[in-house]
């Protein structure tokens, strides 16, 4: 059985005789068929980003895309007279995607060959493939989360954030305050868990345990009074960051056991991990319990180790730990422990959160 091909994260379009019919600089009019428009809209709704690599007059071509009502769908367009491979590579770099997740569609065999020569990982398609792209497995994610549907908007908001950050001169914390960040922590329901599926699917660098909790396991714990499953969303003045974190906590009489803490790398710069940890420490202190956290060092989650250690977690023994049976087998899991004390709320963002000292009503 052949493996499912990796999903395409961004499709790069040629314009003349691929996206539209005709050649902009030669023909009196170029037309966008309703079928092609439907492909653009459908891919966008699946969370697949789209861009443009076209040899054309930039201002004319962009104006035409705006007139056709599709300009908003294309991020970091590359319209000019350079090599298409350079354009595709520039797009991948801007979006921070690996070339193996980029697809390129162009009617000219020489352009496809040029891209393949300089960027062999990029998957190339012809104009004849356009209408069937939506039927291909590499353009068909198994799960389309609410955040995936808004992915383009979030990237556009991100571009604005980058500009704002680059033009800001001052301490990081003042910049963060200027963003009007709001973090919302919520006891999860089924829908919330779907929104964090992308976080739980992968073992990302911000997964503090380095251990994967399958979606069904988390869903099974939603109604368990001994566990808390929490999801985290972040918003700022530029728009939503979407669902950015998930926590799994088990209550014991003397200690809360943090089994999973995963936050999106998109929000690392906002210190989301530390804000979450501090909130949890404060909640535990109010409940009169210690905190314990599973941590398995990997080559990708050092940031989380530093967040734990800087929050005061140590590997010192404590009587409260004797009752904890870790979900994870294997000896490379560290049990980090903290005697909790009240903490002040974050200075950089507003926090909307449940009261964990009161068990959720079911």
């Amino acid at each position, binding site marked *: 059985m052949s493996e499912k091909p990796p999903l395409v994260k961004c499709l790069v379009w040629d314009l003349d005789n691929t996206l539209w019919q005709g050649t902009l600089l030669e023909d009196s009019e170029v037309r966008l068929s309703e079928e092609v428009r439907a492909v653009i809209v459908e891919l966008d709704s699946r969370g697949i980003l789209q861009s443009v690599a076209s040899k054309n007059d930039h201002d004319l071509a962009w104006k035409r895309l705006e007139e056709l009502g599709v300009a908003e769908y294309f991020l970091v367009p590359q319209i000019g007279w350079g090599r298409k491979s350079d354009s595709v590579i520039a797009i991948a770099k801007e979006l921070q995607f690996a070339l193996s997740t980029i697809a390129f569609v162009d009617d000219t065999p020489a352009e496809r060959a040029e891209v393949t020569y300089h960027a062999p990982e990029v998957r190339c398609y012809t104009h004849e493939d356009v209408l069937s792209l939506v039927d291909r497995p590499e353009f068909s994610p198994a799960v389309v989360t609410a955040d995936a549907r808004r992915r383009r908007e979030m990237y556009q908001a991100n571009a604005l954030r980058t500009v704002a950050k680059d033009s800001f001169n*001052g301490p990081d914390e003042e910049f*963060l305050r200027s963003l009007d960040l709001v973090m919302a922590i919520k006891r999860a329901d089924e829908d919330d868990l779907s929104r964090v599926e992308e976080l739980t699917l992968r073992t990302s660098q911000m997964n503090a345990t380095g251990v994967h909790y399958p979606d069904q396991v988390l869903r099974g714990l939603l109604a368990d009074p001994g566990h808390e499953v929490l999801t985290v969303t972040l918003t700022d003045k530029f728009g939503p960051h979407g669902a950015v974190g998930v926590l799994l906590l088990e209550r014991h009489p003397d200690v809360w056991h943090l089994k999973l803490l995963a936050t999106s790398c998109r929000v690392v710069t906002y*210190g989301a991990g530390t804000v979450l940890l501090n909130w949890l420490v404060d909640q535990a202190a109010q409940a009169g319990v210690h905190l314990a956290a599973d941590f398995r060092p990997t080559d990708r989650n050092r*940031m989380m180790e*530093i967040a734990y250690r*800087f929050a005061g977690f140590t590997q010192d023994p404590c009587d409260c730990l004797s009752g904890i049976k870790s979900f994870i087998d294997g000896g490379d899991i560290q049990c980090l422990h903290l005697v909790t004390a009240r903490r002040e709320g974050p200075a950089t963002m507003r926090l909307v959160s449940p009261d964990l000292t009161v068990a959720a009503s079911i």
Partner: protein
Amino acid sequence: MKTSPLTAEAIESAMTAYLTERTKTEVKPDDDIFASGLVSSMFAMELVVHLESTYDIAIIGPELKIDNFRTAKVMAALVLRLSEDGVASDA
């Protein structure tokens, strides 16, 4: 062996210069950069990596506690303690 051994003074002044540049705020050797809200948790990571690569040391486990990073002065002491080439003041 390096020809000029590390001294607390040299590390301290290098670190105050680094912190001043990075936070765009004048930082003195005894200033607590975490208490003053000058740095984010993101910066904590940068700081650890900066110290490790600049002074060729590994900061692991219990040494990662925040109290080892509060001021340029305590960071200098940490570097000396972890560095083979260092000449600790109490040696």
